[in-house]
């Protein structure tokens, strides 16, 4: 029992991290109808920026070893993501208003490679670490209930908490604020939004900024777990099944989808894996996504594709 719960919780924690990346996809898709392939590259870019600034800034201002240095690095990396968002809008999206989805998709693929390239030439391409001072030591819970208790990683727990707060804030933003409503309007119909005076350019900068910040948070958490390296940009591919499962347009869907996939991967690896020789973890998510595409293409919580007959 204890082992099962540990696997389950491990899956939930991993799922939370997938969710963070998936969230970036959902935000941009929701607000601009663009499937942003560059999300993974943005995570990498943000993580690289964070890792390097956390190294440089304390050196410049003599803040070694203090939280202030880390906080300053986070702020600077955040600002950098704003600049990236603004540049993307200015140089790419502005010229592609009202173009086909496929055109925009290709554009984001291009953005992904440019970001990866610029990221590694600005910040270097070796492996870096991010240390934001999260506690690494595991704790035992429920020692009275089970023999041996449950082994839980504190770091994972905090990461999950951060993700949950982020999602809560974003949901409020989308449902309750004027800007959030305008973002949803733009997602539904660019042209109509433009015709009633919603400036697309500003909306896009806002949404890419928000996605950039989410990428930064995801990058910091992933980076502090696994180290910052080039392969970080492929976490985007791991998050693809999550968005398909949860629905491309649903913020809570990204979270639930992430959790399901995280848990499913771990449990299937542990319990079904031995029967088929292991390795399920790698493809489990994709098979699940495929099944969803067949039977519920809008995902668990996605907006129904409404067609009037």
């Amino acid at each position, binding site marked *: 029992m204890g082992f099962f719960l540990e696997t389950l919780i491990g899956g939930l924690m991993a799922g939370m991290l997938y969710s963070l990346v998936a969230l970036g996809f959902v935000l941009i898709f929701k607000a601009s109808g663009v499937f942003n392939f560059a999300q993974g590259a943005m995570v990498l870019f943000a993580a690289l920026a964070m890792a390097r600034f956390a190294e440089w800034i304390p050196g410049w201002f003599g803040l070694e070893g203090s939280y202030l240095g880390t906080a300053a690095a986070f702020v600077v990396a955040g600002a950098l993501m704003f600049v990236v968002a603004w540049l993307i809008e200015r140089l790419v999206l502005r010229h592609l208003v009202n173009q086909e989805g496929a055109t925009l998709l290709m554009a984001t693929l291009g953005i992904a490679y440019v970001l990866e390239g610029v990221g590694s030439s600005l910040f270097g391409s070796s492996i870096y670490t991010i240390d934001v001072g999260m506690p690494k030591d595991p704790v035992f819970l429920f020692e009275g209930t089970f023999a041996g208790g449950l082994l839980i990683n504190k770091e994972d727990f905090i990461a999950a908490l951060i993700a949950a707060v982020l999602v809560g804030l974003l949901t409020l933003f989308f449902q309750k604020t*004027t800007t959030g409503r305008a973002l949803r309007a733009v997602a539904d119909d660019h*042209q*109509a939004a433009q015709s009633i005076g*919603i400036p697309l350019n500003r909306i896009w900068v806002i949404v890419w900024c928000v996605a950039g910040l989410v990428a930064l948070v995801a990058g910091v958490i992933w980076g502090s777990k696994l180290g910052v390296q080039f392969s970080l940009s492929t976490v985007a591919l791991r998050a693809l099944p999550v968005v398909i499962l949860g629905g491309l*347009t649903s913020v809570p869907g990204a979270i639930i989808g992430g959790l399901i996939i995280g848990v499913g991967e771990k449990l299937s690896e542990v319990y079904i894996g031995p029967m088929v020789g292991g390795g399920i973890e790698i493809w489990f998510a994709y098979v699940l996504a495929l099944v969803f595409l067949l039977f519920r293409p809008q995902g668990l919580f996605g907006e129904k594709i*409404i067609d009037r007959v």
Partner: protein
Amino acid sequence: MSTANILLRVNSIEVIYNHVILVLKGVSFSVPEGGVVALLGGNGAGKTTTLRAVSNLLHGERGEVTKGSIELRDERIEALTPADLVKRGVIQVMEGRHCFGHLSIEENLLTGAYTRRDGKAAINETLEKVYSYFPRLKTRRSSQAAYTSGGEQQMCAVGRALMAKPSMVLLDEPSMGLAPQIVDEVFGIVKDLNQKEGVTFLLAEQNTNMALRYADFGYILENGRVVMEGAAKELAANEDVKEFYLGLSSAGRKSFKDVKHYRRRKRWLS
């Protein structure tokens, strides 16, 4: 029309799509403050393009005003963005309604107030006013727009534009795909808004009969040119208009067998 109260003046504009396709070949017209002006004509005559040129939505369609000028209250507006124009009180209701399908009717209406900075109370006041003009919308306020009927969507689109408190609304083909009864209702509300709220309307319509009944003045477009203009009553009484657009002739209903195409070419296109 005296020149003093001209709200919008379009001077022989030429519009080219994709740098090659010439759609408007010198269209000129003017809209007086507080008037209802109709742009009439068949498919591809250039009505929608004209409206888009005024509201500056051409850019997204890869179109461009290459010649001529558009003036709002004697001020050139070709270089403004659609959002700037909405702030100056000119808003377009696009052809085919274009409601935000996944937003509720009320949310749709509220997005229309995006450019306003005069506070929540004023916006709610306008919302109530829109509901008083379109009581049907109030009963459907929380349904997703995509699930409402075509007529309700058209009303939602017009209501959404009114939420910006415009002085002028460009209304593109409000009758499209609607039952005649609903068309009557929509046009009736347009007339009401014009008389009670003083909103100026520029209307693009294929439904010549209906448009001339509610407009004060009309321009007939054909092949990207204005071929005829006049007070709505005169146009409705004009023999050619009757024959070409209303399907009537002096000898009562005419058989399609006898419609002479060459005649209209000879008369209107040089």
